[in-house]
């Protein structure tokens, strides 16, 4: 017979592995890895493709400054590569996650080879996908129609030269990136003496400094026209014109507006990364609206998932701007630090505990836990069925769902046991 373990495990057994797995090597992954390494945690950074950098490395400039994001990220990558706390694997993927926060048993696929690792916490930074749809069927001169990302890549080349006419169309989207990109392009283009027209549905300027930017570019002579639904694109031998009626004007004043343009720049649809659904299954986390990782619950913090020790940073939770991503990375690493120094002994006293003699190992609690906080233990001393599920003190959020669902009433919740509730009910009708 095997050596049997005591139940519940001693608080000393609950160790926190000071190692963070960052999935995704884009800007959000790099920033998270940097923050975690600053705190003294060792970091494993895995990236699906061959190179680090992701989509942010393709940007030409930011709206706040002329800082080149690609250069900025290159500096960060080279400092990460020098850091001996950080291990970077490219061409690698996450395959399997077992266990709970503090000691996740993670299986990675590193260039075709499988490798197992003990990990304390996981930061997901898998990013987003872009899908662009041409606004019109064009026979000749399709190069005049660019999505924002394509425009971004060849910005310096296109923005040089004589006064060209640019039409920036921002279709209604859930995210503000499209609007802010249009504003930052129009500022630069106006500086180079081009004609700029911005068509928009709703101008989203909730980010810091963007409203000021909007007023600034308006004063400089950028034309803003509301409404993107009635845009008609006419073409004649590779030259294009745009016909529209301003819906904001009264009917009497409304005239057809014809713009002969050289470039038509439209915003892409921002979609969750292709692997997001698969990864959510591996990690056992809920998906939010639109298939992104973000949990639509205002009781939990933005970077949190429905499992402790798994955090979402960057575009995989919601496409966002770079300075916000930096803050999210800090928030995720801060939460990891707080978990790593938590007093496990004190938490254990408040966590519901399963009576191993009553437990039939039916896994009802395992299935009903909204936080997926239950570990499965085997070879337990005195257990009716060799083992019992265990509510991990760091992962458990003390909601009591498992307590109510247990068919054999085998789980006792400190503070809410039958005796405690009876004591409360003794006060009924004012009799104490």
């Amino acid at each position, binding site marked *: 017979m095997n050596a049997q373990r005591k139940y519940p495990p001693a608080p000393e057994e609950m160790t926190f592995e000071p190692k963070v797995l960052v999935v995704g090597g884009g800007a959000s992954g790099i920033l998270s890895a940097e923050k975690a390494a600053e705190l003294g945690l060792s970091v494993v950074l895995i990236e699906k493709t061959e190179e680090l950098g992701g989509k942010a490395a393709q940007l030409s400039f930011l709206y706040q400054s002329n800082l080149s994001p690609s250069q900025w990220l290159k500096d960060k990558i080279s400092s990460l590569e020098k850091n001996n706390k950080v291990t970077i694997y490219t061409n690698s993927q996450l395959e399997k996650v077992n266990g709970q926060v503090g000691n996740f048993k993670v299986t990675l696929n590193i260039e075709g080879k499988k490798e197992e690792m003990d990990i304390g916490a996981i930061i997901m930074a898998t990013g987003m996908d872009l899908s662009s749809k041409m606004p019109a069927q064009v026979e000749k001169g399709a190069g005049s129609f660019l999505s924002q990302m394509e425009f971004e890549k060849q910005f310096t080349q296109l923005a040089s030269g004589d006064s060209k006419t640019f039409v920036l169309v921002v279709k209604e989207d859930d995210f503000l990136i499209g609007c802010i990109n249009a504003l930052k392009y129009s500022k630069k283009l106006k500086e180079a003496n081009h004609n700029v027209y911005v068509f928009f549905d709703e101008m989203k300027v909730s980010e810091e400094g963007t409203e000021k930017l909007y007023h600034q570019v308006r004063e400089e002579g950028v034309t803003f026209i509301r409404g993107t639904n009635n845009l008609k694109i006419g073409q004649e031998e590779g030259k294009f014109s745009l016909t529209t009626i301003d819906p904001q004007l009264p009917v009497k004043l409304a005239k057809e507006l014809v713009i002969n343009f050289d470039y038509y720049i439209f915003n892409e649809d921002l979609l969750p990364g292709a692997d997001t659904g698969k990864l959510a299954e591996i990690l056992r986390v809920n998906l939010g609206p639109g298939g992104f990782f973000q949990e*639509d*619950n205002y009781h939990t913090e933005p970077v949190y998932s429905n499992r402790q020790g798994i955090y979402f940073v960057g575009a995989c939770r919601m496409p966002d701007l770079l300075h916000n991503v930096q803050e999210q990375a800090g928030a995720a690493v801060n939460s990891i630090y707080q978990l790593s120094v938590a007093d496990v002994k004190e938490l254990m006293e408040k966590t519901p505990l399963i009576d191993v003699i009553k437990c039939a190992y039916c896994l009802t609690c395992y299935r009903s836990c909204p936080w997926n906080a239950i570990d499965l233990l085997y070879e337990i001393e005195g257990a009716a069925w060799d083992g019992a599920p265990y509510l991990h003190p760091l992962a458990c959020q003390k909601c009591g*769902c498992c307590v*109510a669902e247990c068919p054999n009433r085998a789980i006792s*919740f400190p503070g809410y046991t039958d005796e405690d509730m009876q004591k*409360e009910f003794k006060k*009924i*009708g004012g009799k104490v």
Partner: protein
Amino acid sequence: MADFNPSLVTLCCENSAFLVAEEENLPGVTPVKIPCGGQVEHYHILNAFDQGADGVMVLACLKENCKHFWGNDRAEKKVNYVKGMLENIGINAERLAYSPVAANNEYKYGELVKEMYDKLKEMGPMEGKVKK
């Protein structure tokens, strides 16, 4: 029945309804703290009736606002289940109710409790009460 004062137990989620219940001190109402709507067991509801309550209300968070994702849905299901049990043993199922209350909605809590209290007053004492 004019001088009948019913006793009402409100099982309140500590994230929403209990924050309100602490502020509102209504006579004849005993608020009991629970960690989440999902923790409500039929045993506890029946125990409250057994201990002399004329009515029980389960108050949890608004729909899709539960901190623990689906605790309030679970509470509603459980309450409907216990209502069937009460009817089986000949107790008016109206004595048990489920309502969502937000943490900042003291007015709604007061209205709900008052409505339930008036209903209980009309119904009279609990049918199943054992006279000792």
